[in-house]
């Protein structure tokens, strides 16, 4: 997993609430058996029209916007547990998703792939969305160590599990940790036979 400390980037707005994992990556693209290539199909049915042409109204296709931060509406990532959603977002180039609320499983999947979910207040979110829409060049700064997200002179702190924070900063994952606990796990099994 890649290490994450700070990020300064422009952002792409996705002003839609309840973005579910079926929208992030539709089921028909889940037949692959590795983690690569999902980025090409992220938000597939919103990015492309029925005839296969690009939907120019969708923000990812709007050349005014760019960057590795996605600023999305409330309740992002609800629905299916497919980690393919996180792989697709990472594959497209996102490193941070900002929303006012994340679904549980998605949040865990994101963190396990070095994709940082940043939960902000609804007010901060709407201000962020407005700022980006009015000025797509706006830079957003994320500092994981300090747990802050800043834009212009506005800033907010965000929560993250301290253990997960350490993992993100150092690029560790849970398997490494769990393997180091094998003795305790076996002792538990013996005790609970």
């Amino acid at each position: 997993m890649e290490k994450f400390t700070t990020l300064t980037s422009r952002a792409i707005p996705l002003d839609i609430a309840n973005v579910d994992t079926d929208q992030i990556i539709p089921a028909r693209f889940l037949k692959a058996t590795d983690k690569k290539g999902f980025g090409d199909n992220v938000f597939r049915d919103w990015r492309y029209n029925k005839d296969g042409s690009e939907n120019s109204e969708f923000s990812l296709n709007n050349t005014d916007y760019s960057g590795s931060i996605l600023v999305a509406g409330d309740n992002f990532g609800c629905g299916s547990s497919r980690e393919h959603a996180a792989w697709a977002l990472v594959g497209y180039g996102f490193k941070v998703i900002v929303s006012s609320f994340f679904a549980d499983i998605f949040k865990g999947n994101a963190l396990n792939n070095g994709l940082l979910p940043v939960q902000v207040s609804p007010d901060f979110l709407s201000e962020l969305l407005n700022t980006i829409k009015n000025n797509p060049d706006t830079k957003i700064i994320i500092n994981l160590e300090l747990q802050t997200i800043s834009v212009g002179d506005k800033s907010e702190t965000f929560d993250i599990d301290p253990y997960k924070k350490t993992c993100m900063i150092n690029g560790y994952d849970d398997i490494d940790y769990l393997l180091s606990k094998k003795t305790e796990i076996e002792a538990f099994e013996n005790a609970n036979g």
Partner: protein
Amino acid sequence: MTNKKTLFDKVWDAHVVDSIENGPQILYIDKHLIHEVTSPQAFNELEARGIAVFRPNQIVATADHNTPTENQHLPIKDLQSKNQLEQLSTNCKKNNITLYELGHKYNGIVHVMAPELGFTQPGMTMVCGDSHTSTHGAFGTIAFGIGTSQVAQVFASQCLLLTKPKSLRVTVNGKLKNGVLPKDVILYIISKLGTNSGTGYFCEYAGDVFENMTMEGRMTVCNMSIEMGARGGMIAPDQTTFNYVKGREYAPKGEAFDKKVDYWKTLPTDEGAIFDKEYTFDAEDIEPMITYGTNPGMGIKISENIPNSKDASFVKSLEYMNFEAGESLINKQINYVFIGSCTNSRIEDFRVAAKYIEGKQKADNVTAWLVPGSKQVEIQIIDEGLKDIFDAAGFELRQPGCSACLAMNDDKIPQGEYCVSTSNRNFEGRQGQGSRTILASPLVAAATAIAGKIVDLTENIETLEFA
């Protein structure tokens, strides 16, 4: 501090291996279910790190998401699907994992076959790379969906690193009206609470409505816990649960079973235990439900009109469905009906449908797919003579699998068409690109197929025969 514990606390606490200071806990996982779509990358991960599967005996695999529901004996045409299924077989063989592959007498949707085999038991912790793992909570089991990285973690260590969720209890007391099924109960609850009310919580369903439900009904309810954001749902184990588990393939036998039952009886929530959040509903207020929008929280009683809202996502949702705020769905023409998915594909669901359908004819405009949740359910349908009823009425009984619930195989609802579906998600394009899903109970689905349009079941609900 009170020492009174909830069902959830009891099961969780019994599985904590260790706690990280200021961090998550290591939770031991008793049973791990896997399927073809979310496991290959986890097997790859283990192989890349040179780690063996730690406890292969605690894993059971099935092929369900990406399988055809016709001609299962023939080679699979779609090459990518074929490859995915072959990888599952290879991975299971290599790692000594029991696999009920396509065509096996125990093959089926992971959340239908595991309880059927007695793999699911009260007091356990269970996971699967699938969000509807919450289904197994019907047995008083902590069961929840995980991502593929976590599948790899469980492969490697039979454990997960988790922060204990908060507790939520939904109590429904009273007597359900005739024609109101478990599916209506859960659609009603989600319509009241919304799709993210449960996020961060594990939910217990309590009250006589759930106590009086069959295991099939309890599974339908727990299945959709995830649709209100909850990681899982649970119902206290009782005699109904024990009777269901007893004698099944993986269930403990004889004295061992009795000893287990003694333990299972200690699991229900202590009187006076405190939940972080509580909701109470009245059974009498629930009616047959349908959804009108693109998330499972957008549900109404079948006789109600679509509400009005200026909210942007509400407007977008109705636009997608091509419905108007304020209108009724009664008499809307429907060309597709799907009875299936891990929510409603158990024998009881098909009995309800068959009872309603018997002696009637499917409307000409309707394509009606019946997809059993497992090979065992399929055989029961045939043995009980339900297939004859379905055939005579023009319904199509297909072979088991997830099918049109997520439309990964060929069972897709065409662009723009409405489907009254007993599945659990009405997201945009869930049942096929551009498809429009209306969630409902097997009874409402059967009635829709007969009428060719949505009908108001409540008009003659008292005399309705379906069970």
